[in-house]
Structure formats: C-alpha cells, structure tokens
C-alpha cells in the first residue's frame, strides 16, 4: 500500500521545511561512521559518502569489484585506467589498499567482515525489508551485488529520498516492490529525516530543518515515533 502526501500541505505555497540535498544526506551519514569501520558504498547517493568522511578518521572503503581501501576520484594526471569503482568511475587506492578477485571480494562481503554497507533503495519497510533492484516482476532486473551486501554486512544503512517524485512514501508498512533482502536494513537517511528501523515502524532520530513530526508522519506510510 502507498499513501500520497496530502497536497494541502505540499501545494499550499512553500513548505516550512528545507529538505536535505543528496550531498547533505551523504554528509549526514558520513558523520555517523566510526573510526576503523570497513564500509561498502553502493551506487547512487551512497558513493558520495566517501567525500564526507573526515580525513583524520580512518575508514576503509571496499568496492565489490575487488578493491579494499578505495580513495577519492584522482586528478586527471593521476588516473589509473584499470582502477574503477562499482559505478565504473575512476577512483584511487589509499596507502594500505589492496586488490582481490571477485570470489574473494564477495566472500569478504557475505562472510560478515564488513562493518557497514550503505545502499540506495526504492522502498524500505518497518521490519527492515527493503527493495532496490526491480520495480516489478516484469521490469528488467539488475541486482548487482545488492543481495550479497544486504545479507553479509554487519549493518545496512539506506540513503534515499523520503518520497517518490509523485509524493508517495518510500518508507512503508510493507514493501510492494520485489525485495532485495528480508529484515536487513537498520537505519535510513532520507532528504527529510534520519530514522532507525524499529520493527513496527520507524524511530525518528533527526529531522530536516523546520520539519515537524506531524508533517513527517503525513508523508510517511509507516508509523513513526521519536527515538529514545
């Protein structure tokens, strides 16, 4: 089931709140990644997280195509044409970084060695189910490494818009799209809020500036409560 945001609230002139941008969502999530974490960043908003981890904090970023210790996009003169990330963009390797083949890379992923995986999603449900690979049974499916990452990492955070362009909630009582994994998501960073998956709903940790709890619930299918 999906709910439409009530047009009365959104269409009546400018909303009183300011949604976070993609960069702000990424920066907000980066702030919460502890020193020493091994992290995989999925394509979309998640890859931007790497740009916002403070340089003094050592976080080791893994890329599914066999890179452990991925660094930022290199200057044009420094590009290694054999070194790309999961989004097929040029990246660098930090000192201490290493390469491995695909079976080892996914052994690392499935084997519970990653502290955290940050993924994008179409939908997430109150029980932690989420969907990010296909919008219907007839849609051209493209799963990549998402299902392996979802079950393998110790924690899964989702970075996503709170609603679709039409204003439909992406934070659901139950997902309606084909699932990527059951019960895997732990936390969600949207353009409107930071929320923990709480089983029967979501617990709101933080909201975009100017947003009220009621207005957030209004655009969210799943029930919300405030985090302790």
């Amino acid at each position: 089931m999906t709910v439409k945001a009530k047009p009365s609230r959104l269409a009546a002139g400018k909303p009183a709140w300011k949604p976070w941008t993609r960069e702000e969502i990424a920066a907000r999530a980066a702030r919460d990644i502890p020193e020493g974490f091994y992290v995989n960043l999925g394509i979309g908003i998640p890859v931007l997280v790497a740009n916002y981890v403070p340089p003094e904090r050592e976080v080791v970023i893994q890329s599914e195509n066999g890179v452990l210790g991925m660094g930022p996009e290199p200057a044009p003169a420094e590009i290694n044409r054999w070194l790309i990330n999961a989004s097929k963009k040029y990246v660098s390797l930090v000192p201490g970084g290493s390469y491995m083949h695909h079976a080892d890379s996914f052994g690392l992923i499935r084997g519970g060695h990653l502290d955290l995986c940050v993924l994008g999603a179409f939908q997430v449900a109150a029980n932690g189910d989420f969907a990010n690979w296909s919008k219907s049974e007839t849609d051209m499916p493209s799963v990549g490494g998402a299902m392996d990452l979802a079950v393998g990492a110790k924690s899964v955070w989702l970075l996503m818009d709170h609603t679709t362009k039409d204003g439909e909630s992406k934070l659901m009582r139950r997902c309606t799209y084909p699932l990527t994994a059951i019960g895997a998501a732990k936390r969600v960073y949207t353009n409107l809020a930071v929320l923990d998956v709480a089983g029967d709903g979501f617990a709101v940790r933080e909201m975009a500036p100017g947003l009220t709890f009621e207005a957030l619930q209004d655009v969210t299918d799943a029930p919300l409560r405030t985090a302790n």
Partner: protein
Amino acid sequence: MINKIVQSMAEAMAGIRDGAVVLIGGFGSIGQPNALIDGLIEQGAKDLTVVANNAGVGRVGLARLMELGRVRKIVCSYPRTTDPVVFEALYRDGKIELEVMPQGTMAERMRAAGAGIPAFYTPTSVGTLLAKGKELREFSGRHYVLEQAFHGDVALIEAWEADRWGNLTYKSSARNFNPVMATAAKLTIAQAQHIVALGELDPERVHTAGIFVDRVVHVPYGEPTVT
C-alpha cells in the same frame, strides 16, 4: 616444451562450438577481453550462453555479438548499465533469454565449479524472487539457499602479463572475474598485454597459475576506456 602462446586469433578460437557456455571476464569494460570477443565474433560460433557481469555497452564487443544474433542466453548480475541499447532491444523483443544472478552468487558458483564443489548454501537472495524454486535449508537458525556450481565450456579472460606456461598477473581492479572464470571452464583463453619469459614472473605475484590456462594471445592494446 609447453607453450600455450598462440600466434593468431584463429588459433586461439579454434574448437569453440555452437551452443557453448562462454564465460567472459571484466567488470564493465575493465578487465574485459575485447580482442577475444572480437575473435569469437569472427570465429562464428552461435547459439551461445554468455556469462558476464554486464550485458554489453553500445554496439561493440559483447553487444555486437548479441546484435549478430549469436547469443541465445545471457547470465549476468547487472544488465542495466550505461548504454545497453542492443541488449535492451533484444530483451524487449523476447529474442534473448536473461538469467539474473546476485553478483556474489555468480562468482561463487564459478569458484565452486573450478574447485570441485558441486553445490553450496548461501544466505544471499533468501526471501526474494531470485530464490524461487531453490532448496532452502536452516543452519544455526539462519536460512540459506542451495546454489549449484556453474561450469563454462570456454572462458575468455584478460590478463596483464603472461608467460608460455600460462601463468598470469592482472592489473588493479581489472582482476575482477578473470581468475575465477579461468578455473571454471574446460578451455581457458587469455589475452595479455605483455608476454614475458618463463621464470620472469615473481612466483609470489602470480595471480592465476598456468594450470588453469590453455591458450594465451598477445594483445598489447594499451589503455582501456571506461564504458
């Protein structure tokens, strides 16, 4: 004397039959053996099942092989890449079969094939459409899906250096699927940027031992482009 280095592409492609299961290395265009794919196009085998992470870009290489109607089925994890024009059209018209596998399951099924493991249980895809019809089993309170080894008839891979025994090294993230595919096929054909004398590769740095490789072609093409 063992010498796996062949002098022509025709020699490299000899014996690939219609209906073959062809494993093609690479992640996007990095580590993808483009010269061997062109060789396969030239060679003419058809009704192929191709296993690759992506379903081709633009109208060259794997996309060209598909456009020529030579691929019956593609097995991949991520067909929706930058510019999958050929695959999209074939898929829409029902002219190509698609089997989507989680990327890690795809890698592990080929690793298992090369390592003599007929099947294994994985937590990946439990509770999703991709586990439909597969055996489920519980170990220590957690559910797993049974996946079987995936063998290839032929593997086409790209290496950085090679010697006449077929020992290989790879460069940076161009390693990706190549070492795993090299172990999983009956006939493994590698293209290499550099051919070095036997004994010249540091044994501590050999990524794929020559036992897994049948033929090597020297293709010093220079730098890859990202697609």
